[in-house]
């Protein structure tokens, strides 16, 4: 069957499944809507958390980053899994014991202050929107390639589907649809990886394969890759080029951000017991690790395959007309481009930028071999250590989707990847929308501005909030601030610097009071957000160029959340030290949180 037909079939079938589950488990009480009545088994909860958690950034973008950055991208692997250790030990069981609906609710009660609650809602909205912007770009990329529509139409289709099951289903719908989505996405991710691992190393287990030898050679695959990339002028694949301090802060921001992400924390409100919350975090990481340990294998093999396809057997390049079909399809979507700097008619890939600016721009005409004509080529200088000028632009976010095609796998495997990518992006977007809706309807309307509304009206406000949020997310998806994984990393930085310290101190310190917590959250959020905006702009031109000379201590905007978090801790503890201790009632509440049995 044609690739396009297969893609429609796979994506259509998986959508039908999610929507059927969502409709079947329609929520009718507020508690069902938000936390599925507290009756979800830890294994299912772990799977749903994993699907909720593994977004377009994990599925589509991460292996691509690993492919191009090698060792330096390890921070994403460690950061996005290590956070679960913090979650299981420091937050999940105690928040389950507390047992209410939302994170701002906890912060508001622990710090006995409406201001604290509103500040927490503001933090949460900033985090969720940044995160969703990344997801929507992921959806756009998948649709633009496989359904051959432009990114905007893809976004609109995605927005409609998310709307249907987030609004109709509520949390229970989402919990079970997310279990289904996890199954789809993990199958879609591992099957092509197994095929490629077999092709390159002969091992059916990718985690072992990429540490093995090549299939018809006794060289280790990673040694071969190191050799090839250094010959092309890049730093060795297994060696790093980023500063240790930046790697440290980025890992820290991603880990703490994972533990502080509201839509993940909320998951642990849905299990029956405190011990189940700990178990759920373990299962969630188990299901996540299945993908995360495969990703580095996918990345390294994709890089090897890409270089060998582009530069050919003798490493001098292959002419454009001999390039396989995937090369031209991605070129048509504008996410891949070629400019013949040395005018030999062959495509060559090495270190250096083939274009002037961030993205390639094309005019309407075609070149001699049918290639699209770039209107913003670079000067074509040969980078230090490279044998020739780089002529190939590849968007990092397409690597996972293009990988099975580059490896020449059958069409059904490629169609499967599309279904998986959409599942990953949609499941996370839906979870985030739910958190936005519950914090607006529950934390802002019901508890602060309109306390007299009925349960029905509260649900209605929640649904209105989802609708508004989807529209804004769609806009952000069309105008994203960076690569999918980069944008998402910034959301984690915001979570790490604002909510994580407030929740952690709320449990582990009896002394931290409302003044300290509010000051800490505000300073952490404002510092991190301003630093990102300063270099990234988003809604306007950036104030300073995003280069190392301008960064504070050499820390990138993605990593700044780590420093913001430390600032938050210091401010919260210092301010609390000089202001009165929390009331007796709150101190008792904290003591009570720490024990699984009892009052709550």
């Amino acid at each position, binding site marked *: 069957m044609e690739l396009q037909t297969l893609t429609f079939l796979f994506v259509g079938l998986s959508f039908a499944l999610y929507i059927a589950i969502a409709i079947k488990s329609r929520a009718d009480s507020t508690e069902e809507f938000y936390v599925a009545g507290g009756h979800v088994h830890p294994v299912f909860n772990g799977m749903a958390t994993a699907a909720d958690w593994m977004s377009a950034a994990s599925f589509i973008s991460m292996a691509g980053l690993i492919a191009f950055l090698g*060792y330096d991208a390890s*921070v994403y692997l*460690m950061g996005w899994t290590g956070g679960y*250790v913090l979650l299981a*030990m420091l937050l999940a069981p105690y928040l389950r014991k507390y047992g209410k609906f939302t994170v701002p609710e906890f912060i508001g009660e622990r710090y006995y202050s409406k201001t604290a609650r509103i500040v927490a809602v503001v933090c949460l909205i900033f985090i969720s929107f940044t995160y969703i912007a990344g997801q929507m770009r992921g959806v756009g990329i998948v649709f633009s390639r496989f359904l051959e529509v432009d990114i905007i139409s893809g976004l609109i289709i995605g927005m409609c589907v998310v709307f249907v099951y987030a609004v109709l289903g509520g949390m229970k719908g989402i919990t079970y649809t997310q279990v289904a989505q996890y199954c789809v996405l993990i199958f879609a991710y591992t099957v092509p990886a197994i095929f490629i691992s077999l092709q390159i190393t002969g091992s059916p287990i990718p985690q072992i394969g990429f*540490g093995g030898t090549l299939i018809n050679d006794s060289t280790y695959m990673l040694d071969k890759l190191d050799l090839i990339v250094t010959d092309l002028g890049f730093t060795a694949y297994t060696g790093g080029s980023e500063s240790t301090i930046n790697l440290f802060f980025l890992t820290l921001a991603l880990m703490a951000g994972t533990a502080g992400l509201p839509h993940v924390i909320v998951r642990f409100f849905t299990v029956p017991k405190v*011990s189940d919350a*700990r178990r759920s975090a373990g299962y969630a990481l188990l299901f996540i690790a299945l993908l995360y340990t495969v990703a580095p294998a996918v990345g390294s093999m994709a890089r090897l395959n890409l270089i060998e396809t582009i530069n050919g057997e003798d490493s001098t390049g292959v002419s454009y007309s001999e390039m396989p079909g995937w090369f031209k399809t991605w070129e048509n979507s504008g996410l891949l481009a070629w400019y013949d700097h040395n005018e030999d008619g062959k495509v060559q890939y090495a270190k250096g930028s083939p274009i002037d600016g961030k993205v390639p721009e094309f005019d309407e005409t075609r070149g001699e071999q049918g290639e699209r004509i770039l209107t913003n080529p670079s000067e074509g200088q040969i980078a230090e250590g490279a044998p020739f000028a780089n002529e190939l632009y590849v968007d990092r976010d397409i690597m996972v989707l293009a990988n099975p095609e580059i490896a020449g796998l059958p069409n059904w495997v490629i169609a499967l990847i599309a279904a998986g990518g959409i599942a990953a992006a949609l499941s996370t977007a839906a979870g985030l929308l739910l958190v936005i809706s519950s914090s607006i309807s529950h934390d802002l309307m019901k508890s602060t501005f309109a306390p007299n509304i009925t349960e029905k009206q509260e649900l209605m406000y929640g649904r209105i909030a989802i609708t508004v949020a989807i529209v804004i997310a769609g806009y952000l998806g069309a105008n994203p601030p960076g690569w999918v994984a980069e944008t998402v990393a910034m959301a984690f930085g915001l979570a790490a610097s604002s909510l994580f310290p407030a929740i952690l101190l709320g449990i582990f310190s009896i002394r931290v009071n409302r003044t300290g917590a509010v000051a800490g959250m505000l300073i952490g959020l404002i510092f991190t957000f301003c630093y990102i905006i300063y270099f990234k702009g988003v809604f306007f031109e950036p104030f300073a160029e995003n280069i190392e000379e301008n960064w504070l201590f050499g820390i990138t905007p993605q990593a700044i959340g780590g420093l913001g978090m430390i600032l938050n801790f210091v401010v919260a503890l210092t301010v609390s030290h000089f202001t009165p201790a929390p009331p007796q009632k709150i101190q008792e509440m904290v003591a009570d949180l720490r024990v699984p049995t009892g009052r709550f």
Partner: protein
Amino acid sequence: MSKELTHKAYWRENIKLILTCLVIWFLVSFGCGVFFVEELNQIRLGGFKLGFWFAQQGSIYSFLLLIFFYNYKMNQLDKKYQVND
């Protein structure tokens, strides 16, 4: 022992366990994967340089073991202090 004292003792043991786990958590990720990666890369594990392996594989396996170890110990602790729910 009064209920309050039991709870305090339970919490102290929990904190000790958490700190132990977090030290290991820090060592396998920031230690082996970031700070001492160059040194560990001198050692090989099949086709992997050890530091690289820790950064991309080993740390994740260690995290998993850590969480399940913590859960196992906490369930014991819950029983010991009769606070299991």
